[in-house]
């Protein structure tokens, strides 16, 4: 019996417009993920620093909350700065999620049959990127319903974020959801930041250790900063 050496040919790439070429390519989608991820990471650093104001009492924290609504005044109309930030973040979340979905579908199709001999591959942070991302997406929905729209908040007092935060972290489920999500966030940043650097072409053999160390540092600082708030409420440091 003759051995078939070739299987059915596959289509060659179709010519595209520059935008189509970019967005249709795995490298382009990864670049979109990297840039949107870095935008969100930058926001998280600012968000975490803002959260730490809770350690300086309700007056300072609530004043900070009020200022967020009036950012950019008198140059910008009231709430314009806030909505500007919200639109950029929403666009980043959507771009990140859509490219993650498209890439994941492609990746799963590219390996339809697994190996019979399984072994553990890659680090925990790397393996949990997809589900970690889903957890973070669900967390964002809950977080907005809890502390922005106050729909599911126990205290739900408009203009009193300090009291609302304390109310959330006085419930077992509030703490569980938040701490789980922050753990997922730390892992996501650990692999995500380093990956973004590679995707955007910043990775070299010489720079690799520095980039990995920076990714770990960012993951650790951001997670620790966020987690400190529920811990402070739980231990009674903030009440």
């Amino acid at each position, binding site marked *: 019996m003759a*051995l*078939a*050496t*070739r*299987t059915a040919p*596959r*289509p*060659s*790439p179709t010519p595209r417009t*520059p935008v189509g*070429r*970019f967005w*249709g*390519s*795995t*490298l*382009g*989608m*990864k*670049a979109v993920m990297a840039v949107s991820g870095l935008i969100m990471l930058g926001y998280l650093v600012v968000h975490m620093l803002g959260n730490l104001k809770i350690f300086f009492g309700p007056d300072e924290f609530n004043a900070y909350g009020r200022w967020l609504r009036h950012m950019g005044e008198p140059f910008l109309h009231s709430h314009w700065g806030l909505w500007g930030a919200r639109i950029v973040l929403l666009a980043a979340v959507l771009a990140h999620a859509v490219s993650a979905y498209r*890439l994941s579908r*492609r*990746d*799963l*199709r*590219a*390996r*339809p*049959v*697994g*190996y*019979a*001999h*399984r*072994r553990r*591959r*890659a680090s925990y942070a*790397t*393996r949990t*990127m997809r589900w970690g991302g889903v957890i973070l997406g669900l967390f964002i929905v809950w977080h907005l319903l809890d502390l922005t729209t106050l729909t599911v908040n126990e205290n739900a007092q408009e203009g009193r974020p300090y009291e609302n935060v304390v109310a959330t972290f006085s419930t077992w489920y509030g703490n569980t959801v938040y701490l789980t999500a922050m753990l997922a966030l730390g892992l996501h940043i650990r*692999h995500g930041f*380093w*990956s973004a*650097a*590679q*995707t*955007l*072409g*910043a*990775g*070299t*053999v010489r720079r*690799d250790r520095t980039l990995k160390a920076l990714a770990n540092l960012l993951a650790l600082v951001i997670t620790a900063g966020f987690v400190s708030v529920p811990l402070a409420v739980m231990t009674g440091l903030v009440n």
Partner: protein
Amino acid sequence: MKLNLRVWRQQHPETPGAMVTYEVDGISRDMSFLEMLDTLNEDLILRGEEPVAFDHDCREGICGACSLVINGDAHGPERTTACQLHMRSFRDGDTIDVEPWRAAAFPVVRDLVVDRSAFDRIIQAGGYVTVATGSAPEAHATAVPKADADRAFEHAECIGCGACVAACPNGSAMLFTSAKVNHLGALPQGSPERETRVLDMVAQMDAEGFGGCTLTGECATACPKGIPLPSIAAMNKEWLRANRTVRR
């Protein structure tokens, strides 16, 4: 040595396959993995059974033909090709799983043989330099800085075996494509086609149905020629640059 082998048997690309268990005896520690499979095939032929089909050519680790996933690792436990893997890496009585490369872009032709012509088409898309052929050029006509020559050579070591694709959980061909892009891009002869090369090769890579890169690093761990993971970052940089500069 006496070994238990569990080998993937598949008659035809369209028919289902399965892991089949065989026992081989009289294996020397100094045999290569492929010689061990030869021994198995001799037994099978004597018993009137169909021998196991597997790819091999040079058997000295330079052609990239052998393509076996051994105990879940592309090319097995050592950092080399399956033909340069010796049975001394295993112990008497071991059970060894032998499977073909697994990727949608590398369909199984038969048993352990996969069709890797997707790699050929990626090369055809841009893995070349356009030069006037004829008499050999004067060797000193084009000066290449030592650092560039080293970088080109490091990536030229890629033998296109496809272990990177086999090891990648996404069946991605990024390490292979980046090796070729970085090899030719580092040299003056490859510079004129630098932008179109990376755009065309990446487009072909995507069209072949390889997955995207999630930077798990499995490819660089499996690569028998030690193509480093940052090669992928270098290709990303090259691709982004080409997108900015090339208008077509």
